[in-house]
């Protein structure tokens, strides 16, 4: 993984480097290059406005020749002023232009770098053509100057350029070499420098801030993920810090003191925030480091706060601040780099490295700021800061893609466990159904066995006894066998569902018994009326009903000597009454009932929640089976189990 990523990185870095070289080569300035000037230095008080016209020959003092860029070493302690005015110094640079090599028409004066803690003014042939309109300290001196020369009908190429810089005595004055030429000669150089020095930091810090706002909104919803908050804070602080790279060429809406406060202090805040961020990457929280950084940041912020008397100007003590933070940053980020490497956090290493680079470049910038190195160079820290921006982006991007893939993985796992759970449920459901099926089968078997035992079995056994004792003729045997077959048919009928239809059950019974009745010559009158559906009437119960009524018929055929049987149904008080009425001779119910099987019928009826009744007179007998319409039948097991 490492080598391919490194190769990609090198590829990109090479491409960027090539592009930069191309830009550098393509934007070299041409035209008149002013690299030498006569300099005249005057001590002054305060910041008097520059005169409109001036004759350089009348200026008091002696001129001396210098090479440009010209950058005197600043004094550390400013000198004392008179009359409460700030002691200032006015430095004049005079350029005598060669009449043989005049400036072209539509010429521009291009000043790549200038410095003053004060004001800046330019004269052409003794006439003021430009002056700074800015704060004294934060005056946009990081922006190159691009000054069009007067372009009137009578205009002639200038013979002399004069630059007036009034600045704090002992601090800040410096001037790079100058270029004089037309747009084509100088514009590429100017725009390239303006872009890289001022606009690039502006654009990138603004973009960074936008992503920070987004991160902040994320944090508002996910308060526990402080990384988002730190990221947001970092973007804000970076935005503040980079302001001084592009702002100030026009007057600022705030005082120099405040602008200094919120552009200088962010250096300390950045170090603190980056450290806190790195701690969350490498998880090595050395308390002392954090506390020291926070303490220093706080102390600087307080002592430079311009709201109270007795505080220090942030701009003035910025060198002290920068040096302090450079040292602390080196130590902190060095440790962070170490810890990140130990923790195996590539992100941490990347960010710590960028931060270290920023500190190192910060050192260079201090030298540039203090005129120790060629002032025509660029301030470099901001590029490290842009690299840091990219590093932050990459880290947040990593977090985001990681979160997304985690969600994806979680979904996969979830789907898998859901499927497993479903399979489990299915299996247990299947098992339950298998058990249920077994139970149903078992009950059905029980029921059939019981039925065989009570019906067919006992009929066959008694037939066997009779035949063994030789007390029966063929017709008698046939009768018994017919009875057995009828039993069997009713058993088979009871295996088909009747779906709550009592009349269907009675019809079935009639269909089975009719041939026997016909043989006996007993007339059957079918006087059934519709009855409501009996929800409880399942196969088990219907066999009981069939057997009860079958026995009633058998009793009539065997004993009653009847000529007619009436079958009736009626509904009374939530009870269905099935009646088997004969016109036979009747009998004494109390005396004869048990012998005639009423006990068996009563038990079966009770098992299905009903009861039986017998009324007998000399004109006939009425057998009644009373069945509840609502299912008050006892449980299946009881219905099965209680029949002997």
């Amino acid at each position, binding site marked *: 993984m490492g080598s391919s990523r490194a190769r990609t990185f090198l590829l990109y870095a090479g491409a960027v480097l090539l592009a930069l070289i191309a830009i550098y080569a393509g934007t070299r300035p041409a035209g008149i290059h002013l690299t030498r000037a006569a300099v005249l230095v005057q001590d002054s008080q305060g910041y008097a406005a520059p005169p409109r016209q001036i004759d350089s020959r009348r200026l008091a003092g002696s001129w001396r020749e210098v090479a440009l860029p010209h950058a005197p070493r600043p004094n550390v302690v400013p000198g004392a002023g008179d009359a409460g005015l700030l002691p200032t110094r006015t430095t004049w640079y005079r350029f005598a232009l060669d009449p043989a090599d005049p400036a072209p028409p539509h010429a521009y004066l291009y000043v790549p770098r200038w410095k003053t803690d004060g004001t800046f003014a330019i004269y052409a042939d003794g006439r003021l053509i430009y002056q700074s309109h800015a704060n004294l300290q934060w005056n946009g001196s990081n922006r190159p100057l691009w000054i069009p020369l007067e372009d009137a009908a009578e205009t002639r190429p200038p013979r002399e350029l004069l630059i007036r810089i009034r600045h704090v005595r002992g601090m800040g004055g410096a001037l790079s070499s100058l270029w004089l030429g037309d747009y084509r000669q100088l514009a590429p150089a100017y725009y390239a420098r303006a872009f890289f020095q001022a606009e690039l930091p502006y654009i990138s810090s603004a973009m960074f801030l936008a992503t920070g706002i987004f991160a902040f909104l994320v944090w508002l919803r996910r308060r526990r993920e402080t990384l988002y908050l730190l990221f947001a804070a970092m973007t804000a602080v970076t935005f503040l810090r980079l302001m001084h790279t592009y702002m100030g060429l026009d007057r600022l809406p705030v005082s120099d003191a405040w602008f200094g406060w919120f552009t200088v202090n962010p250096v300390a805040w950045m170090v603190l925030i980056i450290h806190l961020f790195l701690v969350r990457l490498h998880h090595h929280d050395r308390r002392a480091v954090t506390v020291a950084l926070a303490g220093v940041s706080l102390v600087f912020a307080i002592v430079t706060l311009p709201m109270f008397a007795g505080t220090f100007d942030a701009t003035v003590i910025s060198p002290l601040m920068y040096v302090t933070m450079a040292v602390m940053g080196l130590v902190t980020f060095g440790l962070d780099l170490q810890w990140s490497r130990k923790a195996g956090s590539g992100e941490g290493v990347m960010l710590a490295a960028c931060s270290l680079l920023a500190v190192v470049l910060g050192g260079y910038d201090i030298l540039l700021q203090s005129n120790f190195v060629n002032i025509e160079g660029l301030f470099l820290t901001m590029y490290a800061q842009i690299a840091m921006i990219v590093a932050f982006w990459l880290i947040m991007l990593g977090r985001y893609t990681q979160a997304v893939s985690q969600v994806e993985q979680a979904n996969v796992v979830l789907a898998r466990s859901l499927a497993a759970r479903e399979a489990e449920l299915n299996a247990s459901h299947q098992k339950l159904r298998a058990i249920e099926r077994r139970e149903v089968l078992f009950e059905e078997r029980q029921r059939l066995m019981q039925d065989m035992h009570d019906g067919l079995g006992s009929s066959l056994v008694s037939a066997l006894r009779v035949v063994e004792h030789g007390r029966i003729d063929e017709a008698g045997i046939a009768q018994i066998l017919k009875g057995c077959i009828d039993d069997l048919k009713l058993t088979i009928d009871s295996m088909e569902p009747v779906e709550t239809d009592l009349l269907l059950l009675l*019809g079935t019974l009639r269909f089975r018994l009719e041939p026997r009745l016909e043989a006996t010559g007993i007339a059957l009158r079918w006087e059934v009326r519709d009855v409501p559906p009996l929800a409880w009437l399942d196969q088990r119960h219907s066999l009981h009903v069939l057997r009860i009524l079958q026995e009633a018929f058998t009793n009539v055929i065997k004993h009653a000597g009847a000529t007619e049987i009436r079958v009736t149904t009626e509904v009374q008080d939530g009870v269905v009454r099935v009646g088997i009425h004969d016109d036979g001779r009747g009998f004494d119910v109390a005396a004869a009932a048990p012998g005639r099987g009423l006990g068996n019928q009563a038990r079966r009826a009770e098992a299905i929640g009903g009861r039986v009744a017998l009324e007998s007179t000399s004109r006939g007998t009425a057998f009644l089976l009373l069945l509840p319409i609502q299912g008050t039948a006892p449980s299946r097991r009881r219905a099965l189990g209680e029949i002997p």
Partner: protein
Amino acid sequence: MPDSALPPLKVALVEDDIAFQNSFAAALAPARDMVLAGTAHNVAQARRLLDGPALDVLVVDLGLPDGSGIDVIRAARAAWPACGIMVSTTFADEKHVIASIEAGAAGYLLKDSSAEKIADEIRALHAGGSPISPRIARQILLRFRPPEPAPEAAPPLANPLSPREHEALELITKGFSYDEIAELMLVSRNTVMTFVRRIYQKLEVTSKAEAIFEARNHGLL
């Protein structure tokens, strides 16, 4: 009832049980109006029988040693369209009887019927149709019941029952005999028999329609 002026009914039996063959032959012997014109013991023999001249009534047992009697019924329906087909069964249980009717049978014969009853049933079948048991009537009603939520898979009902046929079937499920039904519906017994015959036919036709519908559904046609 036997009309000596008409030629006797030619009856054939497809049955593997020798005992029933014998009692069947014995039941037909005294009847002058019918004659046992053929006997087959299995499906193969039955098919050969069907290749011969058409007979009037064919009695088929379902459980044959080399196949199902249903196939014999179907083949007979095709070979002898005018022949009345009866399925002989011990219990007249719904499953077998309905399947037979759907294959083209017009009635059934209970094997434990008396000799006179057997002859009567054959005559009744030839005259119109066998009695329908309440359970089978109920099954037919369910078969013809209009589909309540109209599921798309329901086959089109080519021959729905007429209201009178429906009423007759309802009365059969309640156990009423044909005479009682005739009385209740204020029609003759013959009319009830006609209803029953039509019901048998519709069941067969419907089952064929269903078969075609199913075949279409399964892309076989």
